[in-house]
Structure formats: C-alpha cells, structure tokens
C-alpha cells in the first residue's frame, strides 16, 4: 500500500488525519506491524530544541528622514552586518555585545525582540549624495520593522557527538562545562525525536517544505552549512518570520567562557507515504550512535573515547575509562516534545498541511576541513634544543650549578631511564636553601606534575598552556617522554613580539 501526499492533505482538511509524535511510532509498529502502521498513521511529527549557534535574522528597518545608509550598525550594542543595501542587515546569534561581554549577544537581541522588548538601533555612515545622514539612534520594537526574517544557516543536526574532557582542568566550551578527568559528559540533540533521524534518506525533508520554527510556521531552504549526510551529519538551512515566533521556542543562552547562542525549536511533520517511511520513523534512540569526543585535545580532529547511543546518553550515565560518568543533555527533550506536540495539534486542526520537497537535499555531501595555505608554526620550529637536565637522585647543589651554568631558570628532571619525571626552578632551589629539612636531593624539591608540550603541537596551543598555568617554560617531550627541547616564554616572544617577553 502507498499513500499520496494529496490524500493525506485531504484528511488534514477534513479533520480525519491521524497524527502521532515520533516517540510513539516504534510502539505502534510493534503493535500493528509495518503495514498496519502505514494504514493507521498519516503523519509523524518530530521536534528538537537546543543550542543552534548558526542562527540569525535579516532585518529591514525602513528609511529615516533624511535617509541614511547603515554601513555599521548595532542593536543593543551587538553589531549586525550592514554590507547589504542601505537599511537591510543580518544579525548573527553568536555576535557578542561590545558593552556587556559574553552574557549578551545577537541571540539575546532576537529574544528581546520576540518577547516584545524595545531594542536600540544605532547606525553610522560616511554619508553619500543619496544617503546624506551620518548617524542615527532609535528605539525599536519588532512591529516597527518592515521585516524580520529568521534565516538560520545550520540547524537541526541529524545527530551530534558527545563531549568530555580528559585533562586536569575544567573546560568551558560550546558543549557546556566539562569537568576534569572525564568528570562529566554533555550531549546535544533530541535523538530519535529530532527531524532528520526520522528521514535519513531525505525523501520528505527538503527544500520548500513547511516546518515548525521558533513557534511559527517556517520553511526549509535547503542543505544547512556543513551538511554532511554521507557521514550521518545532515543539517538544514531554515527560515521563518521572526514576528510570528514565540519566546517559548526561541531562547537566548550563554555558554560560560564561550559566548552567546540561540536555543531554537525546530520540527518537521513527516508524511507516512509507504512502508519505507514507516521504517525510518520507527527509529529508536539505541539506533543512533555518536562518538564521545575529548575536548581536552586542542585539535580539530579530537580523539573519540568510545561510541555511545542516544539511549545510553539519555539514561543519565555512561561508562568512560572504566568509570560511570554522569551525562547532561544541553538540549531540552521536554521542549522538543512540546515542539512535536504543538506541530501535531496544528496538523490535526487543519492549520498545517504537508508538502513534498520542491528540490531534494544532497545525500552525498561530506564536509571538509579548512584549507590552510599558511602552516601554523609548530613547537619544533622555535624550541631550544640545548637541554640541560638533572636526574632525580642528584644533589640539589648539582641542580643549582647547572641552573647557573646553563643560564636558565628551569631544569627538567629525568629518572634513571631518561624519562621526564619533574621540573626544578631557581625558585625551588632557593627555597631549598632556606628549608634544608625537606631533603637534599632533587627529587625532594621537584614539581612532579609537569605541564609539557610536544614538537608537533602548534605554538598557539603551547602559548595557551603557559598562560593558563602561569608558568614560563615547557619541556618538549617525544612519544617516549624523553626531553628533546625546552620552550620558554622568551622563544615565544621572538615569534609573537612583546606579549611573551616576561
């Protein structure tokens, strides 16, 4: 049996349509079988509600008198892009306020507008013959604007890798607060309730279809940026009228240490046309797998610790390195259910009809990393290869002599087989002179927790290590923990200029 979009829309119009939310589909298929579910269910509604950084809106403000070409403009001190005609602008969700820092950004302006607040527009121009005015400051409500069109370049990720942190310091990321030593795990997305997992072959979700966006009726434009269906990470570019949206489904947020982002509710209503659509909408959380990524590694390709399913993640605990670690969703599943339920009500009431894509989304794309034409310098290129070291069972006096002779302030300490086990500074040695009771060997006074770098690490990352730990030298070690160089703030100073000369 097959059903046409036309027959489903007929049922929507005459009120006989049968709609369910996606979380209920597996049970229905189990009870009625696939053919039975196809006969029974016409539409499956989906939803997700989470941080979607790649969001924003186009505005048309209308012309002032005398008219002005808004070359640079700010909304509540958040800069919007004005390089499009005279009174059009695009405001991105993650743009940060120039006066309030990361706690207020583009996302907050959007939420203020949507919840009926007043927003200050400030714009400047160099003045032209046709647009003579040089600046303007005015307070605006959403209804004062000619248009406010949300256009989100990348929303509704099919799935998203989970995050943890193996380092010994707390990280503040766009995946939230990550405690040291894999102290917690965060994840994003609604799993089997989200739009794209319910149509992974992109048969019914595509350009032109109506969707739920921020509490209003929106539309899919096409593939989202970084769309990568070939690897299971499809995304959508979506649009909708900001003036129709509701703060229930559009919320500004701040990820501490990262900045502003926008929580957006997105939902799609999927027509159950044939058995294939029954199967794809019967997906469950345990069929959606993601990797747990170590955000402690400052590289693009961060290592994965293991793979997990959304069922594991939603259980609240996941095993990592032999220990149970608690999980936090960053998206709201409760809100995602509200999105799917609201959309269900719209369809049942005949307020929302279904359309097939006017153009199908690409199913083969794969997102690639940035092509970098200038290589970022590596530690190997600037490190000092003359390493003066001591062993842990040498006398402190020996260390002192080496420090003096080597004209250095740091000496790496090695064990019998030449592996790095500590570091001693001139400060440690001076302290030892004053407090001889601690012992006379290097091992008695060395710092055992040595912050280190590798020859292939980028200089930026090494510099960040120095800064974060408030230290001035890093031993450079190979894969066997043998010290092959030292990197000091002075080496970095040669590269970056004044900032690193301490």
């Amino acid at each position, binding site marked *: 049996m097959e059903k046409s979009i036309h027959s489903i829309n007929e049922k929507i119009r005459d009120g006989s349509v049968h709609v369910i939310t996606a979380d209920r589909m597996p049970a229905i298929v189990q009870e009625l079988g696939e053919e039975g579910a196809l006969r029974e269910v016409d539409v499956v509604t989906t939803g997700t509600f*989470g941080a979607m950084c790649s969001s924003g809106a186009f505005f048309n403000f209308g012309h002032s008198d005398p008219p002005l070409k808004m070359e640079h403009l700010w909304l509540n001190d958040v800069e919007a892009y004005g390089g499009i005609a005279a009174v059009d602008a695009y405001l991105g969700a993650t743009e940060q306020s120039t006066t309030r820092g990361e706690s207020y950004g583009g996302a907050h302006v959007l939420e203020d507008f949507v919840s009926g607040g007043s927003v200050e527009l400030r714009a400047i121009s160099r003045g032209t013959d046709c647009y003579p005015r040089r600046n303007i400051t005015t307070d605006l409500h959403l209804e004062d604007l000619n248009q406010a069109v949300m256009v989100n370049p990348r929303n509704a990720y099919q799935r998203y890798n989970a995050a943890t942190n193996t380092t010994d310091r707390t990280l503040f990321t766009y995946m939230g607060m990550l405690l040291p030593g894999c102290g917690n795990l965060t994840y994003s997305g609604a799993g089997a309730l989200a739009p794209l997992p319910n149509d992974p072959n992109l048969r019914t979700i595509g350009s032109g279809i109506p969707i739920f966006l921020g509490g209003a009726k929106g539309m899919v434009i096409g593939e989202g940026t970084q769309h990568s269906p070939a690897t299971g990470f499809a995304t959508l570019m979506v649009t909708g009228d900001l003036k129709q949206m509701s703060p229930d489904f559009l919320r500004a947020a701040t990820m501490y240490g990262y900045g502003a982002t926008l929580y957006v509710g997105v939902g799609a209503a999927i027509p159950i046309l044939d058995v294939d659509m029954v199967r794809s909408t019967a997906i469950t959380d345990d069929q959606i797998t993601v990797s747990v990524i170590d955000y402690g590694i400052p590289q693009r390709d961060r290592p994965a610790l293991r793979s997990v399913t959304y069922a594991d993640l939603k259980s609240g605990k996941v095993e990592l390195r032999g220990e149970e670690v608690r999980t936090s*969703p960053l998206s709201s599943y409760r809100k995602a259910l509200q999105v799917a339920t609201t959309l269900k009500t719209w369809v049942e009431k005949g307020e929302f009809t279904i359309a097939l894509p006017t153009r199908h989304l690409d199913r083969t794309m794969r997102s690639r990393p940035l092509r970098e034409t200038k290589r970022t310098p590596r530690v190997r290129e600037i490190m000092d290869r003359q390493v003066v070291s001591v062993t842990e069972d040498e006398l402190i006096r020996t260390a002192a002599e080496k420090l003096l002779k080597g004209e250095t302030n740091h000496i790496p300490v090695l064990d019998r087989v030449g592996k790095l086990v500590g570091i001693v500074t001139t400060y440690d040695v001076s302290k030892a002179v004053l407090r001889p009771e601690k012992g006379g060997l290097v091992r008695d006074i060395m710092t055992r927790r040595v912050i280190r770098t590798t020859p292939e690490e980028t200089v930026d990352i090494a510099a960040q290590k120095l800064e974060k730990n408030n230290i001035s030298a890093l031993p450079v070690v190979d894969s066997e923990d043998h010290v092959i160089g030292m990197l000091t703030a002075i080496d970095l100073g040669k590269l970056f200029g004044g900032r690193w000369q301490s």
Partner: protein
Amino acid sequence: MKLLVTFSRKKMREPIIARVVKETGVLVCIDRAQIDSAAGEVLIDVPDKEATYISERMRAMGAQVRILENAIIRDENECVDCGACISICPREVFTFDEEWKLQVSEERCVLCRRCVLACPHHALSQQE
C-alpha cells in the same frame, strides 16, 4: 538544614564547631570549608529541629550564622529543562522527572556555585 557559619580572623583559632558539637551533643556534617588568612566560612548540615539551637550557640561564641533555606534558586521562567546543570553538580542536586522536567533537591547543595556558571539560561542563582 544548612547553616553558613562565618568567623572573623580573631575567632578562627577557636574550635567553635567542635565545641558546639561537644556541648550540644548534636552531630554536624561539614559540607564545605573555606578558610584563609582574613576569615573563615564553613557550610554545615545539621538536623532541622536543632538548627535554631545550634545557631544560637555558635552566635554566642562569636560566629555569624545564617540559615540557608533555598540555597540555590531556580527561575522557572528562564529554565528550559536543558539539564546542563545535572552532570556538573557534585551533589546530584538536579535530576529529571519522568517527563524530563528538572527537579531540584536544594537541601543537598553545598554552594559550590558551579551550576550558577554552567546554566546557559542564567536560571540559577545563589541566595544572598
């Protein structure tokens, strides 16, 4: 019930907590202690019915005592039930109920303030 006990520099050398325990026979549990050269701040957990009595005794010994009832306050209008606070809290104060709504067991809170930073929606604050 949680009591936030603060001592001035002078009083810090005196074993106020130990003395109160000995004198009253009430067992107190120390949740968190922060002591530096200028002052000390200790968060203790005591049985509800003894809270007033213990506070009085401590005050008499020169400490300042504040009863913390709702240590961490959640603004329901701002909270979206995202759960970002759940995994970072050292005391498992936050959980989801059956409907994925956030539940807060504030009596377990030790006021470490991690959740205040971690909540993306500024929905959590510490009672002043």
